[in-house]
């Protein structure tokens, strides 16, 4: 057989192969390993510490809230104040209202635990997950006192309101800084979001009613970071894309520790736009993922009005 004929045969074979329709993807999640998921935030001035410890789950399987709870019998958790060595054992607390579970979390039953600015705390959690003894620990230093909101420029604004010169007006928070703290965040919460009060006439995207997720769209984060400590104060301008409803808003501004900063800017971006992945920064030792962070918070309220 000469080479030309061989090539023609190859072409035919290639044709057949390339015509084979769809490449199927079978996600087996071979790299799955059980982990303790920590959602632990310490807020300065807080006595009633609330944390959640759950487990991770396979990416190819569904989950319910019950699936991910750790086995209460094998789970132990405590927070230690490293400044004075005092250990606060955490227990699982269920808050009920009219026979319905209103809230469930890991907290401290006593009244002698006060989260204090500038102090350092260590969280230790251990549990048996899928037959494996897992443990995780993390340390956070609460930002020092100093942070507070000093000025909020508007109580209310019409959506995309402009001044007499045509400049767009925005809400802006002015705040004092905490020492050695370079990350400040505003948690912007629409208080009564409905499909009717959603801002459809917005410049960010053509949204239909069925595209709206009230849970997701009602809450936004905005951050100011790496601010100049020598100025002594910071400003955070809230862009209009932070507001999706004509509504009343609660804005909790808080100064955070490094753990929280690294968690927040990395955990939701691990999947890159082109399908690549990278690891988040959790700052948790052992078999744990999630966040153990701390903050000092202050709150303001505002209203976004319809045109």
């Amino acid at each position, binding site marked *: 057989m000469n080479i030309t004929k061989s090539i023609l045969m190859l072409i035919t074979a*290639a044709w057949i192969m390339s015509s084979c329709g769809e*490449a199927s993807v079978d996600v087996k999640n071979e790299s799955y390993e059980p982990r303790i998921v920590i959602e632990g935030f310490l807020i300065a001035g807080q006595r009633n510490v609330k944390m959640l410890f759950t487990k991770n789950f396979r990416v190819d399987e569904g989950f319910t809230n019950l699936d991910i709870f750790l086995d209460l019998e094998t789970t132990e958790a405590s927070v230690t104040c490293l400044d004075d060595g005092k250990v606060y054992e955490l227990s699982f607390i269920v808050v009920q209202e009219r026979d319905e579970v209103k809230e469930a979390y890991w907290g401290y039953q006593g009244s002698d635990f006060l989260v204090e600015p500038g102090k350092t705390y260590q969280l230790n959690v251990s549990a048996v997950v899928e037959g494996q003894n897992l443990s995780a620990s993390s340390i956070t230093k609460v930002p020092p006192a100093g942070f507070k909101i000093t000025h909020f420029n508007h109580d209310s604004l019409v959506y995309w309101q402009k001044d007499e010169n045509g400049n767009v007006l925005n809400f802006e928070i002015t705040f004092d800084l905490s020492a050695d703290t370079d990350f400040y965040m505003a948690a912007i919460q629409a208080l009564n979001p409905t499909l009717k009060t959603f801002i459809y006439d917005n410049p960010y995207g053509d949204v239909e009613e069925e595209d709206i997720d009230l849970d997701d769209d009602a809450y936004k984060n905005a951050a100011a970071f790496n601010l100049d400590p020598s100025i002594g104060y910071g400003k955070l301008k809230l862009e209009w894309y932070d507001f999706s409803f004509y509504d009343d808003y609660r804005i909790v501004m808080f100064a955070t520790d490094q753990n929280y900063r690294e968690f927040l800017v990395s955990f939701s971006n691990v999947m890159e736009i082109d399908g690549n992945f990278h690891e988040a920064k959790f700052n948790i030792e052992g078999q744990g993922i999630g966040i153990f962070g701390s903050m000092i918070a202050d709150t303001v309220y505002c209203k976004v009005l319809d045109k």
Partner: protein
Amino acid sequence: MYRIMMMILMTTTLVFASSGPGARDAATISGFVYNKENGEALIGANVYFENLAMGASTNVSGYYVIPSVPIGRYILVCDYLGFETYKKTIEIVNGENVKLNIYMNVSILETEEIVITADSIRTAERLYRKPISTVQLNPKQINQVPQVAEADLLRSLQTLPGIAPISDFSTALYIRGGTPDQNLHLLDGTDVYNPEHMFGLFSTFNADAIKHIELSKGGFGAEYGGRLSSVLDITNLDGNREKFEGRASISVLSAKTTLQMPIGNFGSISGAIRRTYFDKTVAEFIDDIPDYYFYDGSIKAFFELDKNNRLTLSYYGGNDYLDYKFNTEATEKKGFTYDWGNKTASLRWTRVFTPRLFSNFWVTYSIFRSRFKMNIFDMYENNDIDDLTFKGNLEYHYSDKLAVKFGFEQKNLEVSYIEDDPQTAIDIKQDAMQISGYTQLNIRPTQSWLIETGVRYNYFDSDKTFRNWAPRFSTKYKLNETIGLKAAYGRYYQYLNQIDRFMVSDVWSLSGKSEDRAYADHYLVGYQQEIQKDYELEVEAFYKKMNNTYSFNQNIAAEMKIDTYTPDGRPLIENTKYVFKRGDSKSYGFEFLLRKDVGRLNGWIGYTYAHTLTKIDGINLNRWFAPRHDRSSTVNLVTNIDLLKEREKLVLGMNFIYSSGQPITEPGSAYVIASSPFDPYRSASYAPTKINNIRLPFYARMDLSLTYKIQYKNWSMSPYLQIFNIGNRKNVWFIEYDYDEGKPEIEVIQMMPLLPTVGVNFVF
């Protein structure tokens, strides 16, 4: 190592200098080789004696030198693919050099194999003269590979072994495990930094304006430097020196034209321009299509000042422009504008000092600009590169056993990246001067052996100074009349890093205090064979180790520390300290290429077996992993068939590619968490633990094209139909993970579906 290389250089120079030819009993034959039809110099033409084992190939200027030809009467032969073989009887008399310019006739029976091969230089000889790991394509071959919408140089190169795309949506070249930033793109001797249009879908090089392409996949000689992986050297048309000539094309993507004409009897000029037009057509009727277009154009003038001096002026300019509105229905219409493009200019002086001493001197200027402006809030980004280079390449042909190449390059680089948004200001300005010098000896101890050994010295001065010696070595051995062996080693340095950005133009940064220089070692061995006269078989194995390769730090926002601020208190980033993560890479494999350039059935079959591994500081627990562009096996098949006996009347083109699956990260697990203590809602997130730990399914695709040529006197019109992915195979690009009410939603994002396009080419 460089000391050893220098000793070899000096020793061989002395040995061969002492055994040089006498002036009276030998002579030098030199000159240029031209296409008789249009006066274009032919690059890579083979000039040799029929009855004497001496010969040479023309260089990038179309110049050849055969030194030390003994007294006598010989038949000089010149051979170039697609041209009739040239023969002339030459008589060498005492000490009289011969200057002979050769004008080659285009073969009118190009696809008839017997005409091409009967008197031509053997295929084995052509293979032997080609540097190791080098691929040469001509514009015709680029045009014949079925493409998306229209012929594209970089997409054509992706059909060759060892050269891989990352996806259907990108023209970027991943060569032997290297990343696109490690490729040196030279257009008429000028560096081109971001050679992409349309977010990477098309390259900036207009195929109709190209005369010659040479891609070195590794082991390249000392005359090249500055990149770790490859050199793509593109030469545009000088222009027709005999008559006016034009080409025009209309495709679904763009309209373009290339015009050439003589300037008196001492020069020529060529120009090409291309513009997309769907902003003026489809977008006029469909609101959702953003206002987007690109254009590019080039102009080149060639002047033959006298028989020893030539001047070439070359300019290229291209730009993309996008104006996008997020919601065209809104009262406040906001979005962003983005425009970016390259401009290059070069002035080349070609000087024949003596028949044996040939030189090219360049002044080149290359700029890249991108301007991004978001008007939904106050944000803009400016990304600039400026490169002013002076360089010279000289070659001295001492004897038929020894030639010396030497040269210099002085590069002045300025890079700036400026971004300003309400939260942060970035103002990174870098400049550097690079001075390089090289020398390379081409030694032919016997007719069977050729040794090329050289060294390149780099002095790079930015905010830190680097001094590096880069030794190069290659050898060729003619085993018999049909088989040749090759081997090469080289050390390569790169002083630029790139932030590879998805669909947005890449950002370059210079080595300095923040990032070390990168370097690579190439080890290559090759086998080549002529089979049945017309078939070229090449098998090469390679090992490449790359050190200090830098990639973008995806967690930069988490890790960055600031110590400078704007007057209004925002963080000001003035260096690249946190921008990159350092890493190392290695790749190895072998490539097989069986190629036939002539005949009614022509094309190539390629097979690549390769592995690439990368280690990046702080990623994947510092373990090695395969990058996304790694594929263990790739098969390429490119064929063109003349369906009718009449030459190029009806041509069927086919491109088939099969490659084993690319690696991708499967997240280790998912978990539910709130983004803050004040976030009342919890959503699922992912925790990848092993990077690129699984493989996607294999990739396969077949493209077809059918071109019908209608000839009327000197005019021709060739309508064509191209079908990309004719099997409509749904190849996987990547996987997206999500959860909806506790149920996993795993979405497979696919690459391009079946895509038919039509167009027409005109020649007049």
